């Protein structure tokens, strides 16, 4: 952070001055493009900005300082597992052998990456208790789509075309119902039980011959282990449906619960949550999917295979006709998977279990510190995250969760996830992760308690927050009503401007 505090930055386009450039490559021969037909050529060059490298670096460094980040401070964004991203993993992914390898390079020159991917599949299978893993999906949501398409393929392969519904608890991530729709299913939303868990009776009533599968987040989106999971899985399988586990909250249960062993048929991993790959401002992630034996025939192609000679290769086109096909161009976000692999190898079994132990301990400790000041709707041991609520505070002072969240910014913290899941009034989903020290947890609790006090004594201070951020609250209504989604070059005015 600069000594005078972060400043808003002009647009890259406003920095542009004709003729400013840093030469990057030799000048091409004149006439290199003459052989292209005129009709295929671009008439006017794109109005990209022309900036010097010093100006470019200053632009992005100053912009970076407008961001909150895990490297910069506590980021207890529930459901997102904002843990520290180890630097050695960044180093590894940038090794030329990994970074420069073309995805269509023949198998014999790609043995290092293929081995790493194959080993990672084995590691994830062991961690999850699943039989087989695909690394292809680019993110958790694409993993969900992959998994649900495999569920679809499984039923169809059995000639069972009547299964048109996916059951999803109302506490689920929005990606679950959106995935069911993308995969061609009707979503049936099941209300949660008062204790935040699955409502067995509601599920029993909805399950039937039309049910293709259920999607369960475990631990749930309120940070609780699904205590009735054994009964639920029995019920699901009893009607011939399959059970999908949203693995977003796997960070809580490493070494404690293996979904495949417990009876889940398919799950995805969010490697940026559980295995520390960086969140990148919104990706890239990777969303590997693990399956039990009955879904293995449907895994996306190509899979990574190990031959009897110990050499690795990719499946050939058409080698496994039962596959659901491809969900993206190549084998997966290999550059991200290098980082996940490094993380798992740095921990081993005991280390991963300690990750979950510490994440769960930290969450329970923080919950304990906040009880009495904020409502704790589900007051029993949580897993890696918990819901607090400002509902009582709002009734007493008019200050909402949104205001508390914004005031946290003034105190030097990223707000928790707010108003999610939808089943909790004025909810704040708080996930400290295992990489935050007890001093940070204590200071964060003190800040939240202080804000509750301010809500009573100086509510305007809270409702007007943030006061110290680079910008104050934004006019989101106008942004949506009159969308401005791109810079308009000022050189292009009047009738030429597209509208």
């Amino acid at each position, binding site marked *: 952070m600069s000594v005078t505090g972060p400043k*808003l*930055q002009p*647009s890259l386009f406003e920095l542009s001055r004709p003729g400013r450039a840093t030469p*990057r*490559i030799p000048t091409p021969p004149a006439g290199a493009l003459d*052989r292209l037909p005129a*009709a*295929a050529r671009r008439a006017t060059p*794109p*109005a*990209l*900005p022309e900036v010097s490298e010093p100006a*470019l670096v200053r632009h*992005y*460094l100053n*912009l970076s*300082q*407008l961001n*909150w*980040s895990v490297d910069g401070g506590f980021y207890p*964004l529930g459901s*997102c597992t904002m843990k520290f*991203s*180890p630097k050695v993993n960044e180093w*590894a992914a940038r090794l*030329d*052998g990994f970074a*420069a*390898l*073309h995805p*269509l390079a023949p198998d014999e020159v790609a043995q*290092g*990456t293929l081995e790493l991917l194959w080993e990672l599949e084995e590691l994830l299978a*062991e961690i999850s*208790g699943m039989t087989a893993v695909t690394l292809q999906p*680019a*993110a958790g*949501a694409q993993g969900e789509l992959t998994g649900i398409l495999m569920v679809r393929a499984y039923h169809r392969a059995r000639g069972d075309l009547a299964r048109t519904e996916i059951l999803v608890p109302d506490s689920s991530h*929005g990606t679950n119902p959106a995935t069911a*729709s*993308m995969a*061609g299913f009707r979503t049936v939303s099941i209300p949660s039980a008062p204790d935040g868990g699955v409502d067995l009776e509601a599920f029993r009533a909805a399950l039937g011959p039309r049910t293709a599968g259920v999607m369960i987040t475990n631990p749930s989106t309120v940070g609780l*282990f699904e205590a009735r999971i054994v009964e639920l899985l029995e019920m699901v399988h009893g009607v011939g449906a399959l059970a999908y586990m949203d693995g977003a909250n796997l960070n809580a249960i490493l070494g404690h619960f293996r979904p495949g062993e417990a009876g889940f048929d398919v799950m995805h991993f969010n490697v940026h949550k559980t295995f520390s790959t960086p969140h990148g401002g919104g990706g890239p992630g990777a969303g590997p999917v693990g399956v039990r034996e009955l879904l293995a025939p449907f895994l996306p192609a190509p899979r990574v295979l190990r031959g009897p000679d110990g050499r690795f290769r990719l499946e050939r086109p058409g080698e496994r006709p039962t596959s659901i096909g491809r969900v993206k161009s*190549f084998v997966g976000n290999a550059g991200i998977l290098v980082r996940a692999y490094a993380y798992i*190898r*740095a921990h081993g*079994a005991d280390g991963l279990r300690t*990750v979950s*132990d510490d994440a769960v301990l930290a969450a329970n400790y923080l919950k304990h510190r906040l009880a009495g000041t904020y409502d704790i709707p589900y007051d029993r*041991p949580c897993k890696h995250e918990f819901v607090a609520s400002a509902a009582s505070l709002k009734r007493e002072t008019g200050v909402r969760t949104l205001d508390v969240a914004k005031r946290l910014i003034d105190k030097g913290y*990223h707000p928790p996830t707010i108003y999610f899941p939808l089943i909790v009034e004025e909810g704040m989903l708080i996930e400290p992760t295992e990489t935050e020290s*007890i001093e940070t947890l204590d200071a964060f609790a003190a800040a939240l308690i202080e804000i509750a006090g301010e809500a009573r004594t100086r509510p305007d201070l809270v409702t007007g927050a*943030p006061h110290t951020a*680079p*910008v104050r609250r934004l*006019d989101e209504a106008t*942004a949506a009503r009159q*969308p401005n*989604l791109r810079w308009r070059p000022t050189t292009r005015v009047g009738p030429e401007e*597209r509208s």
Partner: protein
Amino acid sequence: MAYGPHTDGDRARMLAALGIPSVDVLFDDIPPAVRAAGLRLPPALSELELVTHLRWLASRNRVDLASFLGAGVYRHHIPPVVDQVLLRGEFYTAYTPYQPEVSQGTLQTIYEYQSLLAELTGLDVVSASHYDGAAATAEAALMTCRATRRERVLVSRGVARQYREALETYFAGPNLAFDEVPLVAGGPAAGTSDLAAIERLLAAPDRPVAGIVAAQPNTLGLLEPMVEIGRLAHAAGALFVAVVEPVSLAVLAPPGAYGADIAAGEGQPLGIPPQYGGPYLGILACTDPLVRQIPGRLIGQTTDADGRRAYVMTLRAREQDIRRERAASNLCTNQALCALAAAVYLAAVGPAGLRDVAATGAARAAELEAALAGAGAPRLHGGPYLNEFAIRVPDAVAVHRRLLARGILAGIPTAELEPDDPALRDGLLVCATEVTTPDEIELFARALRDELEAGAGERPGARPAAAGEAVR
């Protein structure tokens, strides 16, 4: 635990505060029947051991070959400033900008990315990013169905096979149909989309077409008649999706100029290393009237309570966390850091630099064409190309393999791109970019001449490729 801060004393303090003897108590809610006995994983590695192990794995990949392999993923010079910016922890350890007051850095960089790609594509709306070119193309095809309420799409076989396969996967669930447009087999238009076939496919009155998807350049490197394809699409009430390669847009007509409604593409060439398939950058852009159909995040400019210019995620009612099962897509985490890489890359090279990158690739490719033709492998098609083209090589799979043994990655056999197209049985698809050197071209040409001469000596009857050999 490798990266945690807790001492045993810290843990004891937390346990004491909770009044419990051990952390195990916090896991008592896991039913005993499904409690894991433990994990069988390799032992933890120290950082030194980990570094040594990873360095060894990386060294087992061969990235020192003279490579002419493109086929949708291209080697380029990446200015070091790109990665230096990506390594700012403020960018790469932030997440989705849900709290705009403390996320203006990410928000402005994405808005600028949208603006840069709008300039390149000539289309006004650009999504914050998709997974890769294949996923973006599939989403584009789905968009055409939503926007027209029709259920059938035409996809040219000039679109990369991986993209068509991903599209097929995405279409399976909602039970949408697509037909492939064949490529012209011979003559001056050989290797490009068959316009007469498009007209025939459009003629089925009971199966109206939502969109036509074609690539520029196409998967064989050839330039397609995009104006004509767009005209056919619009005459049938369908939308036109152009699959584009972004560096080429410095010199080729942008989708907005030839009437494309949607552009999709692979953003990898914009400052992102090949890294065996990802993370990459799915580009998706569309015209203004389609803005409410586009999936993925959109960043808009607005003002804060003090009237300062600021940025925010907008038009959120399309997204899964708001709209759930009625969302335009399930997309959540996308490829924000790759979009940042593309933005920094475009700003680092500038408009003249990007043109130079495209023009140098074209120049090197012309040199490569001449050298390979001189070695006895002329082009397979006659039409214009930018920097990638197919050459005629008998027994191409075997020749490709023997060249690999000589340190040359001779592109990719065209039979691997299109296994069932007899017109592509004997070919290699090769490319050049600004990083291709004259020495590499000479090495390739000389080795290819040797192989072709040796092969001719063995004729008649070149050795057929073993079933499935080297085909991916």
